[in-house]
């Protein structure tokens, strides 16, 4: 999170991430090129080797990028890979751009017409596999990836709003089938009968199966969770003001310092009056207090309910954006805010008013009487917080570590939180 603009708000993790990514990319290219040269009988065409190497690397990177998201639904151990995924994506676009540039230069250059039309219009029929202009598929995907890379900086996130930004960046799911088609037709239809085509068939097939399966399973898991939902109170003689509220469950269902995510309308009786059906609410438990905020982070829409209370703030698992649980406000000097919800606890049962309050609306937390077991959990979490809270020794950008406990990874140029915005 930041309050002044920087191009890239570097920290140690990002440096390590980018260094490992860069070295792995170089190693991949080196192995592909060396493998091509060493095992060729009559010498290779260096440009064609580079075209193939960059195309292969770009596609592998795209598969890895697409797998990180659903994998993070199964284990938070991949969170460090998710954290800097934008740099991964931009690097992948750059590799694709080099691939396209080499193709235009080598196959479309040195002739009597412009390289772009020479390459894009070389296929003559959409109805024939052998003559299909598969180059167009790759070009269309590259355009999408360009828009994504160009708008990946948090400057655009602020300018466009998180919703629009997210929508733009979901277009990777349009680019993916285009690229799969580009490779499937471009490589398999042409060279499908030989070893190269056969090897590519396996690699591409495995990649597609992996991406699709991970997304389907993660999606089904999410749906299953949502369907468990909660029950809308249709009549309550003791507390009639709670009619229309929903039952979240017991405080014991919520791990200390963590949240239970409730999907409005996922259970019995619909979403409740005035609630938005399908919206997810994160109900947090923190040292005897229960608070509820939207599950959607104001930064990139990260799942706050999979986050944790750190230094008294709901902390997003994606980029560490923080919000005070009772107000939905980022700690000063940050200005981000998220919607809050009213909650009540009766005994150990948690109730939620499904009507979202305006972002940043302060709500008095609901308290529950802590049992000895709860007290022990508080202590454990305190220890854990000491272990995982912000390390002031790490290379935080600018004055992020001054005067606030809230960190954040903002890479925008303006509003977010304590420090700077960047990429």
């Amino acid at each position, binding site marked *: 999170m930041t309050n002044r603009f920087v191009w890239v708000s570097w920290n140690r*993790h990002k440096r390590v991430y980018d260094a*490992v990514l860069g070295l*792995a990319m170089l*190693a*991949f290219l080196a*192995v*592909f090129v060396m*493998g091509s040269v060493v*095992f*060729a*009988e*009559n010498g290779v*065409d260096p440009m*064609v080797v580079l075209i193939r*190497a960059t195309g*292969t*690397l770009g596609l*592998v990177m795209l598969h*890895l990028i697409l797998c990180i998201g659903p994998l993070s639904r199964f284990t938070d*151990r*991949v*969170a*460090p*890979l998710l*954290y*800097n995924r934008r740099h991964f994506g931009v690097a992948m676009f750059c590799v694709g751009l080099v691939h396209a540039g080499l193709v235009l230069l*080598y*196959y*479309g250059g*040195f*002739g*009597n017409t412009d390289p772009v039309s*020479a390459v894009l219009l*070389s296929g003559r029929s959409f109805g024939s596999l*052998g003559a299909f202009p598969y*180059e167009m598929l790759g070009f269309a995907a590259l355009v999408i990836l360009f828009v994504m890379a160009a708008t990946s900086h948090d400057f655009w996130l602020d300018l466009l709003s998180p919703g629009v930004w997210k929508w733009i960046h979901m277009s990777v799911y349009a680019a993916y089938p285009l690229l799969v088609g580009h490779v499937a037709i*471009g490589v398999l*239809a042409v*060279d499908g009968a*030989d*070893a*190269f085509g056969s*090897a*590519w068939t396996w*690699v591409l097939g495995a990649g597609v199966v992996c991406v699709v399966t991970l997304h389907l399973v993660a999606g089904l898991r999410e749906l299953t969770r949502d369907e468990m939902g909660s029950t809308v109170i249709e009549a309550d003689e003791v507390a009639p003001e709670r009619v229309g509220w929903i039952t979240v469950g017991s405080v014991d269902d919520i791990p200390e310092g963590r949240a239970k995510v409730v999907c409005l309308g996922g259970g019995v009786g619909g979403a409740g009056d005035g609630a938005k059906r399908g919206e997810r609410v994160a109900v947090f438990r923190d040292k005897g207090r229960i608070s509820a905020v939207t599950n959607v982070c104001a930064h990139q829409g990260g799942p706050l309910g999979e*986050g*944790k209370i*750190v230094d008294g703030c709901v*902390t997003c*698992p994606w980029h*560490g954006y923080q919000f005070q649980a009772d107000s939905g406000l980022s700690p000063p000097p940050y200005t981000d805010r998220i919607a809050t919800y009213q909650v009540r606890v009766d005994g150990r049962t948690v109730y939620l008013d499904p009507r979202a309050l305006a972002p940043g609306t302060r709500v008095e937390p609901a308290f529950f009487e802590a049992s000895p077991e709860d007290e022990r959990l508080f202590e*454990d979490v305190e*220890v854990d917080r000491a*272990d*995982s*809270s*912000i390390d002031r020794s790490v290379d*935080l950008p600018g004055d*992020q570590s001054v005067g606030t406990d809230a960190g954040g*990874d903002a890479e925008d140029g303006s509003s977010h939180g304590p420090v700077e915005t960047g990429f």
Partner: protein
Amino acid sequence: MAEDRSDSGFYIGYSSLPRRHRVFLVVAVPLAIAGMLVGALGLAMAQPAWGDGFWETGDAREFRGTLSLEPYPMLHVEGAGVGDSYLLVEMGKFGAGDRFADLEGIDGATVAIRGRELRRDGRRMIEIDPGSGEGDDPVSVLPSDKPAVRIRSAVDEGGDVVTIAGEIVDSKCYLGAMKPGAGRGHKACATLCVSGGIPPVLVVRDGEAGEGAVSYLLLTDAAGRGLRGSGLEAIEPMIAEGIEVRGRLGRAGSWRTLRLEPGQFD
């Protein structure tokens, strides 16, 4: 029982890395990278053969022989065996026709040409050196006591019309300028080359044309002249695709030719 601290760490990018994440990363990332590298090596090794085309590198050298302009510019060099007729092309994706078009008396003359050789399966080509500037002409007419012998067109062998399956390629890339110089992936380049005047060749890989495993047939119009204008445009969509063509076999220097039957691509 107290929760294991090492198993409860919550990752925040700007904070220190919890131990459980570090352990996972130390194992998973190297494994993933190793897997990627093995895959890269496998795909690199599985690439199809690059072909045995050859493109001379280094300084240009001089070739001497008789120049003919039809069906395509060639230099006929005595005593060079099967490949004694060199197709002539320019640097880049251009044929050499324009260079000689306005030169009176060049057709059939004895010339010296500075360039670099491309060859494959005994078929040869010279990429004419572009020269270093004004006054540096890579082509010079040599004095000769022999009368100029002008080859106007491909010589008809007098046979019937035959139908031959093959792939139209641009001769420059296929002979060695690019590897692979054929196939759908090379279509854009081949089309550019042919439209720029590089002689189109039908490559017949099953020996149908009676020259062993791979035959090379220079494509000409029905009169045995080089394809130009509408004749060239007619074959361009077919380049780099498996097709069947009809024509009459012929010869131009040491190159075999196929005089295309008119109207077959309409």
